[in-house]
């Protein structure tokens, strides 16, 4: 499965929850598949989906899912110790690990070679790290959301992209409706 197929499959699971979605194609795909006010689309700032989602989870009680990619996590590896050492049960970090920088033309990442993000997250002190194959993600993600324990999911999948338009929604509108959803 490629990332867009995974997002289609998990859309019903994440629909009613706060989602911080990674820059580029992941946000564009989620926006096209199931746009929700509970989705915060990153239009820039590669690497910070995990940090933004984690700050959100620490600030309030609702479940938060950060959808990140292997390339983006590699950009901001330093946040994994921060997440591990301040763990909060309402946070799930979903790393869609297709071993490539999808939004920039599928150049290979080191996560697709020798580097295991599962092992990295564990070594950083994250206590509940699950590596899962794409087709098995749904139940694992649902369990992570339902659990009182913070979970890091590394979902291994194929690289590949679909053609789709950019998000033209104004960033302030994205933020405003998201904050209203958070507060509701």
């Amino acid at each position, binding site marked *: 499965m490629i990332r867009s197929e995974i997002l289609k499959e998990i859309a019903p699971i994440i629909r009613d929850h706060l989602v911080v979605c990674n820059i580029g194609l992941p946000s564009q795909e989620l926006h096209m598949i199931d746009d929700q006010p509970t989705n915060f689309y990153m239009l820039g700032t590669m690497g*910070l989906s995990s940090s933004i*989602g984690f700050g959100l989870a620490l600030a309030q009680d609702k479940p938060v899912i950060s959808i990140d990619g292997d390339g983006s996590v590699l950009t*901001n590896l330093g946040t994994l110790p*921060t997440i591990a050492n301040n763990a909060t049960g309402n946070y799930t970090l979903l790393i869609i690990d297709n071993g490539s920088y999808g939004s920039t033309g599928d150049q290979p990442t080191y996560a697709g070679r020798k580097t295991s993000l599962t092992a990295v997250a564990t070594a950083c002190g994250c206590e509940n790290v699950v590596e899962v194959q794409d087709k098995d993600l749904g139940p694992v993600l649902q369990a992570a959301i339902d659990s009182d324990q913070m979970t890091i999911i590394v979902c291994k999948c194929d690289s590949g992209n679909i053609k789709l338009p950019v998000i033209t929604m104004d960033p302030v509108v994205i933020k405003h409706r998201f904050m209203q959803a958070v507060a509701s």
Partner: protein
Amino acid sequence: MNLDKKICDDLVANDVSFVTTVPCKQLAGVIEEVDQRDEIFHIPSNKEDEGMGLCAGAFMGGRRSAIIMQNTAIGVTINTLATLTQYYRMPLPMIISYRGELREPVACQVEMAVHTKALLNQMNIPTYHFHWQKDIEEFDNILKYTFMCNKPVAILTDANFWGGYGDQ
């Protein structure tokens, strides 16, 4: 005057309850004070752009946030300031140790100091420079201004403000 206590008192009085920090020698006292305050959730960051991400999330979660960092980090946070904090219009008080200014003992610190105000100016980030201890009197107003205008705002605090480096 206890500057560390005054900074934290003003943060709390302005409902700032989420503070991330990246250490600097000049900021050791205020970081310790932040850590001890029950009203403030303190989360150390490993890098300042990560910290700005945490602050953005906390802000959207309904908590006013702030970052405490060194001016050298302006060099690594330009993209985050432009594409996250400014693009989505989020308030962010940045309490910054202004290394490389008067009474600085480490020459290399001057290399980023000479760029600090120019970069902040280029980013259209409102910038205040605390050089004398009495300048802290403006801090409360700066916080109110930050949350009024929904912008990142820089407060540069130099070695003279903090009382120098002792025997160095």
